[in-house]
């Protein structure tokens, strides 16, 4: 007897139109590219979302169009009086016979992967009441004979879950509640575990997929930490040069180099943000807005310093630790009180908080006779507060991106207070970070192991924030 060819597990996400099928697929596939629309009938073709490892598919998800003419399909099936073991053949016959029939394109698109062996994930909206019109759909799915489970998606605020559970229990042996907008990584994995239970043969490959997902998730964290490390290192060690036209630098030239220097640091930040959005498969967010967060809040603004910077006390301790109090002293312009730090941005702008000025980021020096030319040089970053502002912004951005559901299509909102820093930075972390910041500023070679050590600090911080 010939051995059966291995087939990876497949799951078809099916259901009534507009019940969040695409949202669920988007979340399960970590893909914000899935088109989600509130107009019924916008998904007309099935779409495959395979989980691949080095090109090998471990399992495959299918986003499908919703049922459109379920009663007609069921009527056609019921015309064929066959025993239970032949029912799936009737479904296949329906597909074969109506392949060219435009009226049933949606049903054929959704039934095809099921008839090709996919497990059924039937999605309903648990925030709306149950209706009899769903029964035709569930009956058709029963005819296919494929293992199935129901997923109650809570789209709105009201809750009809119990009502749905009672109804779905008649058709599906497994019913789960899953909110793709709010599900965290653990819930995601739990759902995968449930999906594996549909078929005994799928348990091993899906469990392997779960392990890989964990690895994938860890990779995302590590890559984010690496990207943030690179951002801080680049920003702190950056040196900008400008050739002088005359013997002495003019005020305009000094202003120009300062502007160029700041612009370069902004570019580093933006690039890092884009990289992190890409790592977490949120690169489509950029279509919604140029920069995911911090719109209107410049890296060198008072608001940034107030929200993301160190407090006066912390800064002075940091200065002492780094042995650079003198250098930092001239950089700091204390203004106002710190009473409004926990408030919203608008209030912070008004209150100004503790603002450490950016007029003196680094010395501007007229240098050298390099090949007979004089030039202006600014950098590396001297301001002690800057790395913390940069780091806080980067960590906040990364944590927002990492915990954002791929099903969300709304514009990300900026809401945070000073307490954010407390979530990840204590005295000892700050001390450890400062050691590296001094190293980054020095321009000395940063050893691989040192870079990894800093990355590990960032990784821990990021995980602490997200957990």
């Amino acid at each position, binding site marked *: 007897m010939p051995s059966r060819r291995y087939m990876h597990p497949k799951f078809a996400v099916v259901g009534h139109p507009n019940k969040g099928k695409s949202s669920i697929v988007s979340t399960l596939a970590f893909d914000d590219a899935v088109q989600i629309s509130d107009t019924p009938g*916008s998904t007309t073709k099935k*779409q*495959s979302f395979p989980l691949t490892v080095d090109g090998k598919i471990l399992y495959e998800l299918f986003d499908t169009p919703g049922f459109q003419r379920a009663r007609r399909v069921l*009527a056609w099936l019921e015309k064929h009086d066959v025993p239970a073991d032949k029912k799936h053949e009737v479904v296949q016959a329906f597909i074969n016979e109506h392949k060219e029939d435009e009226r049933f394109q949606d049903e054929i698109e959704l039934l095809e992967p099921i008839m090709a062996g996919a497990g059924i994930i039937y999605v309903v909206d648990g925030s709306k009441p149950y209706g009899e*019109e769903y029964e035709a759909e569930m009956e058709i799915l029963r005819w296919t004979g494929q293992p199935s489970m129901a997923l109650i998606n809570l789209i709105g605020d009201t809750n009809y879950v119990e009502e749905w559970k009672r109804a779905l229990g008649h058709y599906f042996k497994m019913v789960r509640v899953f909110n793709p907008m709010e599900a965290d990584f653990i819930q995601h994995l739990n759902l995968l575990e449930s999906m594996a239970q549909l078929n005994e043969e799928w348990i091993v490959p899906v469990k392997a997929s779960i392990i890989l997902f964990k690895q994938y998730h860890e990779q995302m964290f590590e890559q984010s930490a690496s990207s943030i490390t690179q951002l801080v290192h680049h920003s702190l060690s950056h040196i900008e040069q400008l050739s002088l036209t005359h013997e002495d630098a003019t005020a305009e030239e000094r202003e120009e180099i300062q502007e160029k220097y700041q612009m370069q640091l902004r570019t580093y930040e933006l690039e890092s943000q884009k990289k992190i959005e890409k790592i977490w498969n949120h690169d489509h967010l950029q279509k919604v807005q140029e920069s995911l967060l911090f719109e209107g809040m410049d890296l060198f603004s008072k608001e940034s310093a107030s929200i993301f910077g160190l407090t006066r006390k912390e800064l002075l301790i940091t200065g002492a630790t780094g042995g650079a109090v003198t250098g930092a002293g001239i950089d700091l312009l204390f203004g106002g009180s710190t009473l409004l730090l926990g408030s919203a941005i608008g209030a912070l702008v008004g209150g100004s908080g503790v603002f450490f000025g950016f007029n003196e980021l680094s010395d501007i020096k007229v240098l050298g006779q390099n090949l007979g030319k004089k030039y202006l040089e600014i950098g590396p970053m001297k301001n002690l507060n800057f790395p913390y502002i940069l780091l806080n912004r980067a960590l906040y951005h990364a944590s927002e991106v990492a915990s954002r559901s791929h099903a969300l299509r709304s514009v990300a909102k900026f809401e945070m207070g000073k307490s954010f820093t407390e979530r990840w930075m204590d005295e000892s972390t700050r001390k450890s970070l400062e050691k590296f910041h001094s190293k980054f500023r*020095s321009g000395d*070679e*940063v*050893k691989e192991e040192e870079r990894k050590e800093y990355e590990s600090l960032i990784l821990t911080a990021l995980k602490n924030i997200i957990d």
Partner: protein
Amino acid sequence: MNLKTYINLYELVKTHKGTREENRALGLEYEKIKNEPVKQLEVWTKKHTPTLGKPLLSDTFSTYLYGMTLTLVIIAFFLGFFSGVGLLSYSGHEPVNVIYYMAMVVLLPLATMTLTLFSMFRANASQSLLVHISPAFWMEKMLRFLPQKAQSSLQELKINPLLSNWLIIKRSQLLALMFSLGLLVALLGMVITKDIAFAWSTTLQVSPNEFHSLLHTLAFAWRDIFPWAVPSVELIEQSQYFRLGEKLDTQMIQNASKLGEWWKFLAFATLFYAILLRFGMWILSMFGFKKALKRSLLSLEGASILLREMNEPIITTSATVEKKNVVPQGSHTMQEVEDLDGSYDRTLGWAMSSDELRVLNDSMQVITPMAFDVGGANSLDEDSEIISKCQGEVLFYVKSWEPPTMDFIDFLEDLTRVADKVILAPVGTVEDAYLPKIKELEMWGRKLQQISSDKVWLKRSSVKTLSRESLNAES
């Protein structure tokens, strides 16, 4: 692995990183060296170097470095040679004071080698004074003598400070070695071609015995194997001289033939301190350079990402083909009604029970002779029969939250064939007091625009109207 690999990788990670898939494929191809990142980077660099434009920056740099080193090596050799000749010049009036020469071949090498050891420990720092005082450091300044094109491309090359420091340390040792060889050649040359009377002289109160003891210590490395290369106390006594009186001691003149014996000690001192130890330092600097090269390769910008791409499996979850959903757009202008009439010829409820329909009619204060529940659990035949019973104006309730399926559209199209006017009234849930949400109404509106029928009207009730109707219903 050499400097060329480093520069090629430096250039490649800036211009051609390879795709994630290519890098992973290479990682899998060389899975045996998975735990040897330097080798992996070498393999990757070798594979991608052909993509770099010619001439390679590494070639330009190596040629420049080779040329500069060769020039300086020759200069150092001749400098050593002429220094030796100068130190050993014998006019015949005064013997050659071996202390000058010893200072050059023992003291100076020991001092500079100590500094070198310090600079090796401090090689990490980008601004190392010890490195900067090295003559090799000033090789960079010779850059200005290169053609403009080479200058600009080399100036863009920012070598890791650790590596450039080691490069300087290594080159310095080579130059010092050549300088010492020059000294040795000068010594041997002078000894062969001239009759030199060596002597020693110092202002310090050093007795011949003490001086012998010092020389005996300095000769620790060869005194047992070549005892004749260590000056005896007798020779030391005979070759001590004082300049006072500007005359050579008669004893010295009588033992003139013996004074030349010093050359053996001087040659061995040169060989050991200036050449062998320096050679050792050069070897050490080569090891240090290799180590620095490895570390620099790993800390090169982009190298860690490259290694990650080679070693980590590519896990993808996204769709292989990005699909653009098309939202169907209707061209028909939607007809709307604000308020419901008091009576209709028929009322229908899509996927609603007859009880629900009755409650709805009641709450909307609508009177009708016949009300039917359609869709839902009905069969298609049952629906057809109901359609056949419809006529005149029909009020058709639908669940506002349920999107209209084609099943519903089919029914509606059939209905419009028999009815004169169909008022479609989306109603919300009981919890919402039957009020549809604006978003839901818009969804129904968009769908109905696709039906080109003048008989269909949408009840787009304002919230106010619906609230009134709901209030009435409650009362």
